[in-house]
């Protein structure tokens, strides 16, 4: 009886496949890329979008939640948001296509559309696993993006900001980025809506850190209130490389943010921080799959979630420690504040451990604001609303401050307080 339900296409599934057929003529790609795309679309057609029966999508039943797919159309706005920090070098895509010619001192910037046309992008279009729906959708529809190469030993002081801008319609981008051995850099990846209207966005950042690279990568998602945002950050961390990954979700109607991290080099270290600000009638899912695959690696992950209104939040965090990944030290925490009676949050922090000489742990809490803290502030003459806002702010700001870079911290705090002003 379930078989029937599986094969029945929803309106959104039909729209997705129709949209592919409508676009196929104009999507860049040589023969290898086209056949890779066709395979992905066939997979989507045969298996449909995942339901809650698919464990990896248990709390985000995409088949039910994804209701409609807007038609793909050209950019309708030329709004240019200022970079997050003044000094940053800007690299932009608009409606899924590269915007202008870009060059940044010290790094090599290439066009992803060229990679598709030449066919060098074809191997990268394969999915990570059978539940990699984001990989399937993005691989089918991706039009453009940037290929960034940080040469070995390069120390880029200036932050690089990738802005993925779009209005109503569709945008599918991909950013393969490699950090050469010993390079140092800060990259900000922003997803911003520039005009109103429903957008269907998919994005894959494919990042590799060679030996000894030190990278700060910041993802800021500020999609529109009607947008669907399906994003994936794939990372491979090499020997003695250090990655600081920071993710803020502060927008979108239906958001799935996947972080797929392969800690693949000895001595590698990952510091992952996330802030999820959820309000309105939205659904946001952050799914982390973190593999410690070699001995002597470390990681810490901290997520802070604030859920207002009728929003639903999901955190799935899996730490996998491979058989010979001895001396792994991995710790994860997920703390959530539920700010309204209709707010919901589901957390699934998982440990999958096959090595014995490890230190692994996770903690998860879900609660309302502590009445004692509220009372403390109110007793000092601070009105109820303001006191609540202060406490929420403190709850998330705490981990933003870890970034150290003052300009960056200020800019991120501004995003948080703007959001809170609108929603709290």
């Amino acid at each position, binding site marked *: 009886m379930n078989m029937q339900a599986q094969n029945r296409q929803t309106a959104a599934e039909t729209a997705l496949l129709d949209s592919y057929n409508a676009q196929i003529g104009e999507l860049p790609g040589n023969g290898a890329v086209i056949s890779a795309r066709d395979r992905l679309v066939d997979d989507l057609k045969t298996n449909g979008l995942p339901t809650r029966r698919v464990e990896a999508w248990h709390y985000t039943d995409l088949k039910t939640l994804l209701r409609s797919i807007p038609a793909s159309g050209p950019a309708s706005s030329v709004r240019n948001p200022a970079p997050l920090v003044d000094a940053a070098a800007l690299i932009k895509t608009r409606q899924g296509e590269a915007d202008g010619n870009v060059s940044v001192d010290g790094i090599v910037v290439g066009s992803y559309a060229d990679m598709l046309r030449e066919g060098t992008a074809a191997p990268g279009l394969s999915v990570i696993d059978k539940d990699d729906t984001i990989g399937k959708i993005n691989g089918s529809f991706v039009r453009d993006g940037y290929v960034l190469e940080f040469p070995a030993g390069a120390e880029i002081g200036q932050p690089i900001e990738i802005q993925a801008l779009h209005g109503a319609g569709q945008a599918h981008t991909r950013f393969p980025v490699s950090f050469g051995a010993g390079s140092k850099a800060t990259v900000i990846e922003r997803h911003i809506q520039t005009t109103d209207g429903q957008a269907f966005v998919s994005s894959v950042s494919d990042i590799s850190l060679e030996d000894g690279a030190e990278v700060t990568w910041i993802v800021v998602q500020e999609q529109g209130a009607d947008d669907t945002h399906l994003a994936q950050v794939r990372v491979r961390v090499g020997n003695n490389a250090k990655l600081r990954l920071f993710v803020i979700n502060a927008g979108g109607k239906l958001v799935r943010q996947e972080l797929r991290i392969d800690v693949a080099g000895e001595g590698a270290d990952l510091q992952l921080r996330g802030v999820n600000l959820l309000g309105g009638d939205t659904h946001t899912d952050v799914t982390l799959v973190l593999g410690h695959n070699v001995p002597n690696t470390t990681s810490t992950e901290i997520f802070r979630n604030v859920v207002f209104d009728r929003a639903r939040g999901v955190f799935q965090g899996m730490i996998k420690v491979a058989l010979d990944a001895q001396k792994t030290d991995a710790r994860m925490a997920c703390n959530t504040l539920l700010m309204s009676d209709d707010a919901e949050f589901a957390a699934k922090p998982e440990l999958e451990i096959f090595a014995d000489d490890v230190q692994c742990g*996770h903690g*998860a809490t879900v609660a309302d604001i502590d009445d004692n803290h509220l009372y403390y502030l109110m007793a000092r003459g601070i009105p109820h609303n303001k006191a609540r806002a202060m406490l929420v702010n403190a709850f998330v700001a705490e981990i933003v401050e870890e970034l150290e870079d003052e300009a960056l911290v200020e800019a991120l705090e501004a995003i948080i307080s703007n959001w809170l002003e609108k929603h709290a």
Partner: protein
Amino acid sequence: MAAVQETIDQVRQIDVDQYKYGFETVIEVDKAPKGLSEEIIRFISAKKDEPEWMLEWRLDAYRRWLTMEEPTWARVDYPKIDFNDLYYYAAPKNTPGPKSLDEVDPELLKVYEKLGIPLKEQEILAGVDKPRVAVDAVFDSVSVVTTFKKELAKAGVIFMSISEAVREHPDLVKKYLGSVVPTSDNYYATLNSAVFTDGSFVFVPKGVRCPMELSTYFRINEKNTGQFERTLIIAEEGAYVSYLEGCTAPQRDENQLHAAVVELVALDDAEIKYSTVQNWYPGDAQGKGGIYNFVTKRGDCRGHRSKISWTQVETGSAITWKYPSCILRGDDSRGEFYSIAVSNGHQQIDSGTKMIHLGKNTSSRIISKGIAAGVSQNTYRGQVSAHRKATNARNFTQCDSLLIGDRCGAHTVPYIEAKNSSAQFEHEATTSKISEDQLFYCLQRGIPEEAAIALIVNGFVKEVIQELPMEFAVEAQKLIGISLEGSVG
């Protein structure tokens, strides 16, 4: 300290695959033919002299079962079970309702003696310092003898086999059977509903505190016999009962399927404490044989201020698939789950709990200690959820895993679902190996490595051991030591 010393001794005595309770008793057995069909179910029902409604209930479950698929989500791996290659009914032949212990097959009594079950009333009564324990002994599928019945009856407590209860208290059975674990609940529960052969029935009436601990010892004896126990415990308003379930089984070559269902119902202000020590045959050193243990245990805190507490020590079975759960329906009700799961050799354990908060001001506590050694896989899988109306729901969860050796795996899969803002959930999990410092400390004082590990592990699980009734706590500590035998080196 005496118990610890005993553990050490036992660890020394026993080789890896010399299962302590691995002996076979040769008794004539009355068996149904192999396989599963409506005829077999009619046969079981007729053998047990059941009323028509019970047969219909079974057949209904069987028809549902035919449409269901075996669950595959658990982290366990085993060859496909041929459900038509099993016996679904086996009863010891010479026991057509024994009137006293004298009528019981002496071979049977010897088995119990070897297991150390205090079956004979006089023996229990003679033990001046021993707490009183009533035993409903299950030998394969039929309750052989029930002790202490009279004394319990005086208190108004009904404690008998479920087949007797079907005949003697049909109204109670009808009212509660399947009300916590419905026949359609899951694959194995549905199978159990169709073919369950026996189990215990406990009814503690309003305001009664059960005067003694109730206990059932399970035995799986006959080759290829699926054991399908069904236990139903009801505590009426303000009642209290503590129930112990302990298991041992003889050594076998072929895998044996066990799919039990336990249902608990607690009405207003009632409390049920359910403790399990499970040490069925885990298979040999090569992972051959061993029991498949697919159990559905669920408690329903139906009344306000009711409480259900599960405590389990899982050391046996080749495969364990078990999630004793609490439905916290009544306001201010409370659920507890304390678990020790030890896996060694090729054992696979996927166990945990569900705490479903439905009423207001409900609270729950989960303490789970997993110990993996050898090439075993040990998974904690648990769910805590607060319904929209379950205001002020509270949960605290702690699951710690200990790894002994580098070929085993420990996994934690919690599902935490909050649907209202007043819910307060805390979850923490850790995984690590035995501390080198602690081990060094013991070795330095002349304690051999294996004994030191047993000692450290017993410290690791202390929080759970403390929740066990006294007589079980000692046995559990011994078992943990035995289970970890051979895990070093």
